[in-house]
């Protein structure tokens, strides 16, 4: 168990009468990079939400870094989440500047303002948005917004990175750049799980690919 970062054991989740996840079991080792795929509405985002405690499973158990998520006390949730970087499918950017959006991850951890600035600028450079630091999300293109979300997710050097369709608004070249960044972070030890439809991302070899369909795990392959 020591080298397992995320593990699902017979997990189900139903919204009303609508089952989104059905009896799923799998595990992802520490420092691995895996992909999650499947048609629209298959339950990919729901699976990620279960990991970052935004949803609770109806049955089954989920382990995150050795902790059973159901056992985490309400007051402990923020500390668990600070270990996780999340690229939300719907961005969830706040109506503040790009800098402030990315800095938020660090300010939440009470990092000193003097240290925040260089780290944020460094990360923005990584996603090619150094020059947009003072813009507001409303004045960015779709792809630029998505890269801000990616910057916000990785700036805190999380031990787990969950990316939900992180390249949906990116052209192939920019998407490849983001994947390079992910691999770098992964090489430094971060466990990464990417939910995506992008076949070109899936073609990159050497990773586990989980395939969901109608809430069930239909395929698990190593490429």
């Amino acid at each position: 168990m020591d080298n397992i970062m995320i593990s699902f054991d017979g997990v189900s989740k139903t919204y009303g009468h609508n089952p989104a996840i059905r009896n799923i079991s799998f595990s992802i080792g520490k420092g691995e990079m895996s992909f999650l795929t499947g048609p629209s509405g298959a339950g990919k985002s729901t699976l990620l939400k279960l990991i970052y405690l935004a949803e609770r499973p109806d049955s089954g158990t989920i382990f995150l870094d050795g902790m059973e998520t159901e056992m985490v006390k309400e007051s402990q949730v923020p500390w668990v989440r600070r270990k996780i970087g999340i690229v939300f499918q719907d961005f969830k950017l706040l109506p503040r500047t790009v800098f402030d959006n990315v800095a938020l991850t660090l300010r939440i951890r009470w990092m000193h303002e003097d240290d925040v600035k260089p780290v944020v600028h460094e990360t923005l450079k990584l996603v090619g948005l150094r020059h947009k630091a003072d813009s507001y999300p409303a004045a960015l293109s779709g792809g630029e917004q998505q890269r801000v979300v990616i910057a916000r997710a990785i700036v805190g050097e999380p031990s787990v990175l969950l990316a939900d369709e992180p390249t949906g608004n990116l052209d192939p070249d920019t998407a490849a750049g983001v994947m390079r960044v992910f691999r770098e972070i992964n090489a430094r030890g971060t466990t990464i799980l990417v939910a995506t439809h992008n076949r070109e991302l899936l073609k990159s070899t050497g990773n586990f690919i989980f395939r969901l369909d109608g809430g069930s795990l239909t395929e698990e392959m190593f490429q």
Partner: protein
Amino acid sequence: MGGYHLKVAVSEMWRERWINLLSALSIAVGLFLIALAVLGVYNVKIVTKKLPERFSITVFLKDGLSASEVQEINRAIRKNPGVKTLTYTSKEDALKDLKATLLDSDYVMEGLEENPLPASIAVGLRRDSVTDSSVEALARKIEGLVGVSEVEYGKKLLRVIESVRKGSEFAGGFLISALSAALIFVCYSTVKILFYRKKEEIETLTLLGATRWFIRAPFLIEGGLIGLGGGVLSSLAIAAFVYAGYRKLAASVPLMGAFSMPPELLYWMPLTGLCLGVAGSLIAIGRIKF
């Protein structure tokens, strides 16, 4: 709650300046009315305390008392707390007064063999001791003294003054407590609305690992600042009302000439606003789960 939270609170307040202005104005109007109520009660008290200065008990004495007996009565009355002045009017002076009142008609009394009027002592009272019951008690006590035939005092006037004072205190107290509750509600719902409006932002912050108080701090600051703003506005309004608008009013209503304002009111109001704002925010924060 460092500078970061203050910065967030202020910039959020600016973004939401319309609703904040509305809330601050609601609070200002409420505090203004509270201040008016306080001023009303305060001034009625001052007026009703001034009125009894001219108010006195008249003690009529029996005929044929010696000077020392009158002295004795004088001394006995003076012993009572609340007694300020004693003015003796002899039988002769009383007659002179009556004659002066009748003016040209004083021949009415030309045939009088004996002076029918009694001697009297006017008892002036200290302001603070003039209440309905205390004056009545004093009058009874004096009535019991040897040599006193009758005691007269403005029972009815006193009752009216008392009831005006009580009434204004009751109405003022009612208004003040009703308005305070309304103000806390305004702050509460302002902050609650802010919460609901920022529901998504708050959700995002929690997903990023923010603790409760990290999220709550700006709301507390915002609630406090809104209350403070409302208080400052109402202070300005009261000052403007007292120093400008009031003169016009006083000119057309001579009764209001004695009107005055405790200057402490001007800094108590912003303070009260601040407290109400923080109280409302705390209630709103405490009741909303996230």
